């Protein structure tokens, strides 16, 4: 092959790569665009044929309907409370457990680690019936606690934390002990400040997982006052069969908090996925 031929074929490859990626991005984003544009349509123009790709007379009526006609903000608040409480508790508990695994020799460590590792493959669906029974016995059925406590059992975060804390030098902890720090003080002052990025990653991922959870709220709650967004929107689809504009408005609003989180902490999202895959 001549060198100019190679340059041409390289250029062609680049053009092709861009074309494929543009198609992929359009396919990924188009449903969101269409949902958004439908949410701005009045009940008449939702059903025109052919459909309007841009709403001809955009209206916020659907948003008014969603925010005024149902306790939508309550659902959103419930989702936010559940996802952020789980995220905060998980970051605290998992970093503590990870620290124990990374920096201590203790009785039963190997067996415990193996048991925890083997449960990573066990989906919630397999445990859902006893979880339901336990939640009832604890008296937290149909409360937000029923959505907050069960996810704390999933041990992925313990591994993430243990791996990272193991890479920190142990001398720091020894020095803090010599200086008279309590054991919790050692953890707080020599470990936590150094693992902040990992804590952020775990927090964001836990938040995302809980924000998108469906099976747990479906089984554990039924009152509107503790309903979360995923469940509310799935129900809405059945109730408002013909008002797609309102359904899409509700959908689009549900995306906003997670979108904000993504824009603000994009680095941690990407890192978090990568962490699990490459280190795990």
């Amino acid at each position, binding site marked *: 092959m001549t060198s100019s031929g190679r340059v041409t074929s390289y250029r062609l490859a680049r053009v092709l790569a861009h074309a494929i990626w543009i198609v992929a991005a359009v396919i990924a984003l188009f449903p969101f665009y269409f949902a958004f544009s439908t949410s701005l349509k009045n009940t008449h123009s939702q059903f025109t044929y052919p459909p309007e790709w841009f709403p001809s007379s955009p209206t916020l009526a659907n948003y008014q309907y969603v925010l005024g006609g149902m306790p939508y903000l309550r659902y959103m608040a419930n989702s936010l409370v559940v996802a952020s409480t789980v995220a905060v508790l998980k970051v605290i508990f998992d970093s503590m457990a990870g620290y124990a695994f990374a920096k201590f020799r203790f009785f039963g460590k190997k067996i415990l680690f193996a048991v925890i590792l083997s449960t990573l493959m066990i989906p919630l669906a397999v445990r859902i019936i006893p979880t339901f029974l336990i939640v009832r016995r604890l008296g937290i059925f149909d409360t937000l606690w029923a959505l907050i406590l069960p996810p704390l059992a999933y041990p992925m975060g313990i591994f993430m934390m243990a791996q990272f804390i193991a890479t920190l030098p142990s001398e720091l902890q020894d020095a803090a002990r010599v200086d008279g720090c309590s054991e919790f003080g050692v953890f707080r002052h020599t470990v936590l400040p150094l693992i902040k990025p990992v804590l952020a990653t775990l927090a964001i991922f836990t938040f995302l997982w809980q924000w998108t959870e469906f099976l747990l709220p479906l089984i554990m709650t039924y009152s509107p006052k503790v309903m979360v967004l995923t469940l509310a929107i*799935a129900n809405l689809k059945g109730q408002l069969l013909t008002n797609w504009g309102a359904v899409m408005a509700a*959908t689009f609003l549900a995306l906003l908090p997670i979108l904000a989180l993504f824009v603000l902490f994009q680095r941690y999202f990407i890192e978090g996925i990568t962490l699990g895959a490459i280190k795990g």
Partner: protein
Amino acid sequence: MYAILKKMRAPILSAFERRGVKRSTISRNLVAYAFLAPSLAFFVVFMIIPVIWTFGLSLQEGGLLRATSFIGLSNYPTVIRDPRFRIAMLNTLLYAVMVIPAVLTMGLFLAVLLRQVVFKTFFKSAVFFPHLSAMAIAAVVFSYMVHPEFGPLNQMLRLLHLPAQNWLGDPQLALPTVALLEIWRSLGFNVIVYVAALGRVPEEIYEAGRLDGAHGWSAFWHITVPLIKPVILFTLVMATVWNLQMFDSVFVLTRGGPVYSTATVVWFLYDNAFYYDKVGIAATIAILLLLVTLVLTLIQVRVLRSEVEY
């Protein structure tokens, strides 16, 4: 809580000291278990106990809030012989076969192409975006996309003078349509994993490969794939565990229909547990699902690991 721990410390210490265990060893164990305690408590209550309990329930007959009676292993042949369970298992496996190879190969393909593309971060974020929405919510949007009359998918088919389809209403099409939703939602996740993995392959290896005549396709097949095999294994196992428990999209889109064509194992489990109140049957389905998941992922690990180690 801290005060309670402190109070407990002295009697535990003296009890072990009498048996000749070193004081420093005892207190090291106490500290470690104090740090483990909160995680471990939830792990035991919501992981270990439920798994054992599920197995226990699979040996019983009865309902969620009714008395149950022990019947040994006889739920297992009942479930395995049930044609609805067989269809649900078959649907689940078919669904996994439609989704997993598609997202893995397309994900890797896009990740490799990304090297040549400008605005990498934008493109990466764009394909990852569907992953941010909950499956239940994505399914609601998707049900509008594939709506037989007003959905854009059929509009496009009409523009191309192709026959419009009843995507979710046609028993032949419903399962592939639900699979399409999952492919759309999880492709970006795999892209990001592969992009990160490719970024860790040192450029010198490709240069060395070029000297040996490895270009383009052969470089990809003989250098890239073997080096990122652990990551491929990871995504394969994750996708298997995840897709075998698919439920949210079925619940929102089809409720198992039409004519049971999208009923999955977890759908069948849910139906038995919370609709028909047959808790023993549902627990048996759960244990069978767990076994199938374990066997499939173990095979994947075996096959891919042995190839890596030559």
